């Protein structure tokens, strides 16, 4: 199994009360709540944590893109990945992902990812996402064109990476007279492309298609939901007439390890609950603007609204498998059990979440890396 250290870079100094009062830390929380001096310390702390991840033996360091929110301070994960490119030597750098439909010019993604791939000598893992619903509010991009723009931008980027230029690209949303990428990517035919998703049939059908076989990552969902979607991916591959490899499946989950189960829960509780109940929270209208999902999916979410939008305690989250927390033995046993059920070839662990401070983050990373990771890497 490949183990990835995943970071969201949240604004850990957030005034939680301000976040709660506003109902969400996305889109509308006034940016007066962001203090650039605290931001300066946080960015450098988080970059240090990611670099430490390489030292601890993680296979890859992963960053992602979110806009205008305290949830994550990486409107451009490419900036973060660039900062890591020259400070790391071995670990892969995963951008999970760049939000393609938000770009008016997706060639910039092709170019910038290619730069990182060339600078690092082929250590880039590319990831493509549509951006979450809230980002269609902050960016103004029409969510009813989200899928079309995603597919078209993807096609443009992959062609730009692989086909000899210059050539012309005539899409419906994107039109370019000259596509002629300098630099071309280091990896052949191009960097691996991973597809993080909250789970949707359309995405699974597309990612698992024999032409692509892109690794699919289920992000921050109850274990049962993760299992359902990963199984659905496998079934879809079988439907296409090939067997899914474990490396095509991944799970991104927050993790906390301490000396004992009781201590782990006690240390993580406030921070995890701030993550789930303040940083993640947003109203339905913000999460799922019209057209972002099919209307059928939207109706299902509306039915599950009370469950999805209510508060969740740490204890409930552990029960749901939304969070993995405990002693190294407990965490290892949990992941073994989950792995036996799901056989994911990639595990993305979120070792820092919400307000979790530096000392606890590092201690948890160390315990995970030394006492859990080696046994997990040996699986599969």
């Amino acid at each position, binding site marked *: 199994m490949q183990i990835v250290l995943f970071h969201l870079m949240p604004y850990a100094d957030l005034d939680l009360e301000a976040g709660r009062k506003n109902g969400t830390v996305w889109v509308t929380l006034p940016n007066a709540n962001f203090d650039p001096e605290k931001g300066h310390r946080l960015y450098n702390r988080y970059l240090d944590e990611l670099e430490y991840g390489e030292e601890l033996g993680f296979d890859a360091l992963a960053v992602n893109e979110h806009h205008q929110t305290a949830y994550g301070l990486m409107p451009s994960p490419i900036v973060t990945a660039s900062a890591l490119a020259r400070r790391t030597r071995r670990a892969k750098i995963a951008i999970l992902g760049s939000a393609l439909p938000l770009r008016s010019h997706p060639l910039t993604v092709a170019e910038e990812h290619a730069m990182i791939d060339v600078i690092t000598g082929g250590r880039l893992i590319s990831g493509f996402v549509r951006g979450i619903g809230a980002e269609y*509010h902050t960016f*103004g991009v*029409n*969510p*009813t064109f989200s899928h079309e723009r995603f597919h078209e931008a993807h096609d443009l980027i992959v062609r730009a990476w692989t086909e000899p230029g210059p050539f012309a690209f005539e899409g419906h949303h994107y039109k370019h007279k000259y596509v002629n990428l300098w630099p071309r990517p280091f990896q052949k035919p191009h960097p691996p492309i991973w597809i993080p998703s909250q789970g949707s049939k359309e995405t699974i059908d597309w990612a698992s298609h024999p032409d692509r076989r892109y690794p699919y990552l289920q992000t921050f969902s109850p274990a049962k939901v993760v299992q359902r979607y990963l199984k659905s991916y496998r079934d879809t591959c079988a439907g296409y007439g090939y067997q899914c490899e474990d490396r095509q499946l991944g799970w991104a989950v927050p993790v906390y390890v301490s000396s004992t189960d009781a201590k782990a829960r006690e240390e993580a509780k406030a921070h995890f609950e701030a993550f789930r109940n303040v940083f993640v929270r947003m109203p339905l209208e913000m999460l799922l603007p*019209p*057209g972002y999902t099919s*209307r059928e999916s939207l109706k299902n979410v509306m039915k599950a609204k009370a469950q999805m939008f209510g508060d969740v305690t740490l204890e409930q989250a552990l029960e749901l498998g939304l969070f993995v927390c405990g002693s190294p033995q407990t965490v290892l046993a949990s992941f073994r059990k989950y792995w036996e059920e799901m056989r994911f070839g990639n595990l993305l662990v979120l070792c820092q979440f919400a307000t979790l401070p530096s000392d606890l983050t590092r201690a948890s990373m160390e315990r995970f890396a030394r006492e859990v990771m080696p046994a997990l890497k040996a699986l599969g």
Partner: protein
Amino acid sequence: MPFTEQLVEVDGCRTHYRRGGKGRPLVFLHGAGGAPVVLPFMEKLATRFDVVVPDHPGYGKSDEPQWLENIHDVAYFYLDFLARLDLKDALLVGASMGGWMAMEIAVRDTARLRGLVLVAPAGVKAPGVEPADLFLLPPEEAARRLFHDPSFAEKRLAAPMTPELIDLQLKNRHTTARLAWEPRLHDPHLPKWLHRIGVPVAIVWGAQDRILPVAISSELGRLLPKSTLHVIDGCGHVPQEEKPDDFCDIVFRFAR
């Protein structure tokens, strides 16, 4: 005056419309919420007009055509719709999103139009005036903001929700987003061409509109200098529902 329901195919789009009454044609273009039922103001208008209430492409019981990508597509569609039904000398009454459509139609061609009644229309951005964000308001709050008299909103919120109504609302909301997400509820190019509207224009606005504030009417008046403005006091965003008698009187007087 009974309304009948009909379907007509225009530009490959099966278009559902209601029609009732006798007289000169009046086409009512509904707002973002659609026109799922015959309302008292439609009945009253039908005492003097041949009232046609289409579901826009992508709304209500009309198809969602592939070609529907922006408000301009709707404008050309309606020019074809007017021709298909051979409506002549028609009064075009558009509310909110429908008012925007009426303007987009009229800047292109007024040959089949006698005049325009714009009811709290979207379509034009007024400097310094911020409309409500339809796409972020929770549904209950949106319903309350539509009306000045809270009893209208309470009545609407108390009405039972059927699965069919939910489907209809999601469909209407989807198309509204497609047409009006960005730029939000307006077309920055529209003001350049409003001078092309040569037929008479009446603008009707609720003084207490909390969706598209009445202040927008000044900007619209500046762009359409020959238009007449009728502000109804004690009224929110939907004068035709909240003050149907005042609203119909304005339409009747305008048509004379």
